[in-house]
């Protein structure tokens, strides 16, 4: 089984449907859920995520509503993992079942074992404008495990890394193949548990061929001794299988949005995205 970090955009295509998407990704067995908070100027994203962000903003996304959405997602994930564990133990009583599902969302440290951790990906301004400390506290309240903010790299981070450590939210640096040794060392020194490796230069979305340069890069990254989340342009099972053995988890993003766009184009806006997304994640896991 491949460990997948599944990416989605909060409020894409709207609030309810993005919750449906999260359910499909969880039911399909993702190991991590990366929820992007849409920003008006997503300068590191390709066309799929750009379009999704625009749609999500038009659908009324607000940062506070994004956190509420994540609380809901966590509630759902806990119910699922709870019933999974109770299924496996069979004799689990109903009462303990409901108790744990009520408890988990607001105690992020106590997520159930098979509950995929939720990370927020967003751009610097949404965090900086809100106040980094406040943003991280809201993360904690909503049960967010970590944040990924590509344009707040170590040493231009406005205190994000140290505040993250203080508040118990993992800040996950993003590195790319063209990183210099100096920057690489700096990033490693700031890495707590996870490291996000974009396996090629450029932006999200475009297909990445998994060649020897990608594998060499991942080998270099692995020397950091962190849990490596690797992605950028991964949409096919063959890519996942080539990368998965070398990393902790494979990141898939634009591919899900493409599947949703296709479904909505074929069947119309009212289509049930759950099925389309579920099929895609099952194919990759």
């Amino acid at each position, binding site marked *: 089984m491949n460990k997948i970090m599944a990416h989605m955009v909060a409020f894409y295509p709207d609030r309810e449907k993005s919750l449906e998407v999260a359910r499909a990704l969880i039911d399909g067995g993702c190991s991590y859920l990366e929820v992007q908070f849409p920003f008006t100027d997503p300068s590191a994203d390709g066309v799929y995520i750009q379009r999704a962000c625009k749609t999500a903003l038009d659908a009324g996304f607000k940062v506070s509503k994004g956190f509420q959405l994540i609380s809901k997602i966590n509630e759902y994930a806990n119910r699922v993992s709870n019933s999974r564990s109770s299924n496996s133990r069979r004799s689990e009583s109903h009462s303990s079942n409901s108790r744990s599902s009520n408890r988990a969302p607001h105690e992020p440290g106590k997520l159930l074992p098979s509950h995929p951790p939720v990370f927020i990906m967003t751009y610097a*301004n949404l965090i900086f404008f809100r106040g980094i400390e406040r943003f991280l506290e809201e993360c904690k309240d909503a049960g967010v495990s970590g944040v990924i903010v590509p344009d707040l790299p170590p040493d231009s981070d406005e205190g994000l890394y140290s505040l993250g450590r203080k508040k118990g939210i993992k800040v996950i640096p993003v590195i790319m193949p063209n990183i210099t040794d100096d*920057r690489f060392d700096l990033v490693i020194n700031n890495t707590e548990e996870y490291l996000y490796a974009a396996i090629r230069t450029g932006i999200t979305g475009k297909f990445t061929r998994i060649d020897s340069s990608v594998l060499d890069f991942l080998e270099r990254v692995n020397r950091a001794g962190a849990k490596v989340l690797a992605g950028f342009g991964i949409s096919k099972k063959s890519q996942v299988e080539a990368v998965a053995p070398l990393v902790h988890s494979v990141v898939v993003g634009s591919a899900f949005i493409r599947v949703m766009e296709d479904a909505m184009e074929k069947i119309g806006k009212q289509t049930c995205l759950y099925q389309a997304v579920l099929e895609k994640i099952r194919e990759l896991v």
Partner: protein
Amino acid sequence: MSGREGEKAGDRDGYKKGEREMRLVNNFFGEFGGRYVAEILNPPLEELKREFLKAMEDDEFKSEFESVSAEYTGRPTPLLFAENTTRMLGGGRIFIKLEGLANTGAHKINNVLGQLLLAKRMGKRRIIAETGAGQHGLATAALSAKFGFKCRVYMGKVDIERQRPNVFWMELYGAEVVPVEGVSGTLKDAVNEALRDWASSFEDTHYLLGSALGPSPYPDMVREFQSVIGKETKKQMEERGEKIEALVACVGGGSNSIGFFYPWLSYPWPSSKTPRLIGVEAGGSGDNIGEHAARMSGSGRPGIVHGYKSLFLLDDDGQVTPTHSVSAGLDYPGIGPQLAQLGKDGRIEFTKASDEEALTAVKTFAKNEGIVFALESAHAGAAALKLAPQLPKDRAIVINMSGRGDKDLFILAERMDRDNWHKFLRSIV
């Protein structure tokens, strides 16, 4: 151009309030500036900074910059005494730096030349740029043709519609003009698209950013290349023995203003001997969100967008808001970080001019002086028309006419002579 120290790594205090001399690369200007970019863009920005610092110490670079400026751009650009307007208003003596007479029609060419020479030194073959009004794209396309670079210009869809003539010129120079949809289809979306391109093309491509903003070293570099405007102006005014009371420039991202103000930024201040520096923003059609682009004289808030920290027009959630100006070149939600800091310190005074005031200024200077301001520059003209009557007769006020108005023909005719213009358009299609 040489002899100044570069930036020390991680030095946030490279630029202090009141410091006599700026460094070539400051990175931060007080609290604004910086380099907030994904890791991917750090190596090309470092390469650019290194090359810039090296070039500024190199006499060959300097002499090539000067000879192309003279031969191609037509420098020095003239300084005109606006005699009739001065008489009409009866206050301070009004001068106009005719920067818009530079080849390609605006000050943008100075920065383009500097960066293209750097690109050549770095061995790049391809140039990408964003453009709003099209003036920066035009200058980039023109000089790319001259120096043999492949050139692609990103331009918002909305801007393409209102600045079609410049698209035609860019294509004539052999550039590829790519429409950008983004969220608003304007300049800020074009910047995003150029950044995206650069993230995978930096090995052979230089991103030729068109204003004094963006991640370090752009704000420093663009200021240095535009400083030629201010240096010439100072010399021209000294030769005439004029006493400058105020300098006025329009502010989009801030490249013409910072270059125009440059020589006076290192003067002691506050002091009665140091001229007032006045930046004029787009007041647009009103004060509501989406009706203007007034960051300093309006409602700019601290943010981090497009790789730098500065004041931006943001909503309560930190999303970038739409802007409006009759002049596409001022229609941008952020302001260069050094200007933001100088504004905060009070060194630069900021004010705004509305769409209507800018149009009136275009008419006034056309009728009085036989000069057509670009709509962007007309914002500076409008502010100067208000200020001049309050100044004593022996004092001078200098306006930077950053561009000439030829490119605005379609907008001006539509606003000033609608019926005849429509009749004409119908007759030719």
